[in-house]
């Protein structure tokens, strides 16, 4: 069983942040911290590497650090792989904030609890796409449903320069490599250089 997750097409993502705002609207994150963020790699366009953008929220890991460390058991991994946080069990100890290697859970000062992306489980359960995926104007951010076949997505990578998994949590995020004649070449040579 492969859990649900996001697929990001690095060629199509322009780092606009529409996904961030759509999530804010859907989940009522008006004046609190956003659950999604968009990061730029090489925005100054150094010639040694490509330029692309990583839109990241929660990666609904196979072995989530947040779930493992939570003293009160406020995290649950659903059968479809979505990792949800139960506010009513949260102490606000912020341990998950320290243990997540992706800095995903955010603390709400006013409510004294943590929160994070839940892959719009309420929309997914209703057969709809997560809000961020629906909103992406270039269709770069995609939703990959849970699958029993476990077949990997053609051409998709789990790790790209700029995204690592230092704690072996097994994030469900997948990437399609950036294209365009020059950028694809720079991407390949950067991957090579980093392996050395």
């Amino acid at each position: 069983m492969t859990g649900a997750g996001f697929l990001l097409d690095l060629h199509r993502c322009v780092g606009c942040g529409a996904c961030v705002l759509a999530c804010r609207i859907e989940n009522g994150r008006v004046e609190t911290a956003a659950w999604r963020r968009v990061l730029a790699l090489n925005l100054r366009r150094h010639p040694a590497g490509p330029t692309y953008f990583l839109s990241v929220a929660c990666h609904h890991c196979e072995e989530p650090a947040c779930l493992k460390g939570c003293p009160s058991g406020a995290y649950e991994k659903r059968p479809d792989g979505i990792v949800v946080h139960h506010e009513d069990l949260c102490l606000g100890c912020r341990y998950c904030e320290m243990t997540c290697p992706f800095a995903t859970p955010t603390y709400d000062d006013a409510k004294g609890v943590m929160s994070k992306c839940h892959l719009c489980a309420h929309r997914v359960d209703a057969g709809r796409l997560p809000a961020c995926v629906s909103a992406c104007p270039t269709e770069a951010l995609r939703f990959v449903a849970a699958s029993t076949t476990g077949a990997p997505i053609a051409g998709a990578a789990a790790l790209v320069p700029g995204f690592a998994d230092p704690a072996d949590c097994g994030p469900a995020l997948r990437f399609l490599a950036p294209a365009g004649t020059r950028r694809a070449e720079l991407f390949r040579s950067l991957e090579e250089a980093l392996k050395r």
Partner: protein
Amino acid sequence: MPALRTIRTVCPRNCYCTCGMLVTVDEGGRIVSIEGDPENPATVGHVCLKGLSYARREAYPDRLLTPLRRSASGSGFEPVGWQDAIGEIAERLTRVRDASGPASVLYYEGSGSHGALGGLSMAFWRQFGGCTTTFGDLCWPAGLEATRLTYGVNFHNHPALTVQSRLILLWGHNPAETNVHQWRLILDAQARGARVIVIDPRQTDTTDAADMHLRPRPGTDAALALGLAREIVEAGFHDSAFLEAHAHGFEEYRQRLDGFPLEHAASITGLDPEEIRALALAYAGTKPALLIAGFGLQRHSRAGQTMRAVALLPALTGNVGIAGGGWQYANLASHCLRPLTLPPEPAASRAIPVSQVARHLESLDGPPIRAAWIERGNPAAQNPAAHRLRDALARLDTVVVVDQFMTPTARLAHFVLPAKTLFEEEDLVTAYWHPYLQWRAMVLPPPGEVRPESEIWRALCERLGYDTSYFPADRESFLQALLPVGCGFTLDDLKSHPIDPSANSGVAFADRRFPTPSGKVEFASDEAAEAWGVDRVPDYAPLGEGAASPARGRFPLQLLSCKTRDRIHSQFGNLDWVRGVERPHVLDIHPDDARTRGIADGSRAAVWNDRGRIELTVRLTPGIRPGVVHVLEGWCHDGDPDVNVLTAEGITDMNHGATFYECLVEVARA
């Protein structure tokens, strides 16, 4: 569970996309969702980050909700009721008019909000006795005129046909930032094997994805276009059959090309001769090929002739009137509405060029300008010579500004009137990329004391005893009456989906009929020479303040001030949601240029010329052409406006446009 309403509407910003939107609100008037309207075939199911940010903008804490009057102490504002505001404004404007004449009042209308009802302001001004308005446009007019002179009309192919292109040439255009829907279509075409080639002095999100990128010196594109044309003709790749049937003045044009051999074009543009040749062969050798020119290409004094030179390349190669091909600049197919019924224009009215407002405020006479009404715009930040404009406004007797937020322009006003948002008044909205006319619905009532501009004008007319019959008694029937006679659709049709009033196939000039004087594509144009005093055939001349001018001795760097997707000019940039995702505001400078000036990455630098000086943070950017620096336009927070203190009040060679990108500066450690 509160009941939810989903309403179809449209975004009325000065933007290519003019997205169809579906807005869902709950009983309490809270926006719970904003999505793209699937019924708009161009924007399909998406809006952009700015469209989504309306959910925050609508009820933003800083939003102005009451009329404001400058307080007696002179600093800060105090709330005032509408009755008093209208009464005092009417009294002050009539006093200025009676002393100095109606033309002593400037009515300035920006591009901040599109819609047919915007024209109702003239119902007041013409009964007032006239006023000074502006003519020309800060943005695109040279290219519009160049296209009209060449092809007869500003139409282009339906955007959805982009996916059929085999080669897409983007010239001075950055759709990854400025037209995200077009960008999606280009990516789709690229995924099917189309090549994407970009001509831009900067590296941008668009050039990142390109298959080929040329970086010429800004302002030399006419030489590049003529050089490319010469290569194409030399190689025999021009479409002789098309030219035989549909070109006027080709021989005259061909002689012009003799002056642009490869090495000459290369030396003017600063490009490599081989890359020019490669581009020529690629463009001419691939069909259908689409050439999209951005507005940035024409923000200088040689704009019209440059755009004519570039616009002729699709005709040269027979890429006109075919799906997947064409010249794409602006599409006015949706501009079909009947004009408003207005009072006659009084003789006292006059107009000043919109790119020279500062100097006219300073020194216009017969009569001088003593009062100003500014709405839907932010000229104190966005116009050339913004600081002089600001100072001149501050000296006026009466300034009234209508806006949603306290912008730099509003801060100079004596009265600030709270403006509506797109959700708070019905209207009809045209576009300039896709061919759709769209209905803008009333989604929410205006909050607080906010009134739409049309109601403000009506109130002023009432106060002065003018005829108010020009204003809508009922907006829907008023707008229904603006639909073209015999158009075959009604307002109710528009409420259920966008409509293309041109009812053509989506391929511009498929019938090869060009409404020019000759009925053909004009490679040589008498009208251009007569109307604008330019050469009959497109030519190249160096910019007065450009790469080849003597001023470079003192100001060696060419400054570009391009657009970001985070804003529409100076709108949206104040919102916390947008500031959380926006790109950093920096001066992009090449590391070589920075090194010779001893400027470190991340440090503060001063940018100046004879017109002004600003300071900002530096980012060493290997991706920009050496000799060129860049700051994003539209930034007007954290203090005074910046880049436009450096820009000049120039005018384009045709059609009264502005010359924002014709700007030389020097940079040094601050």
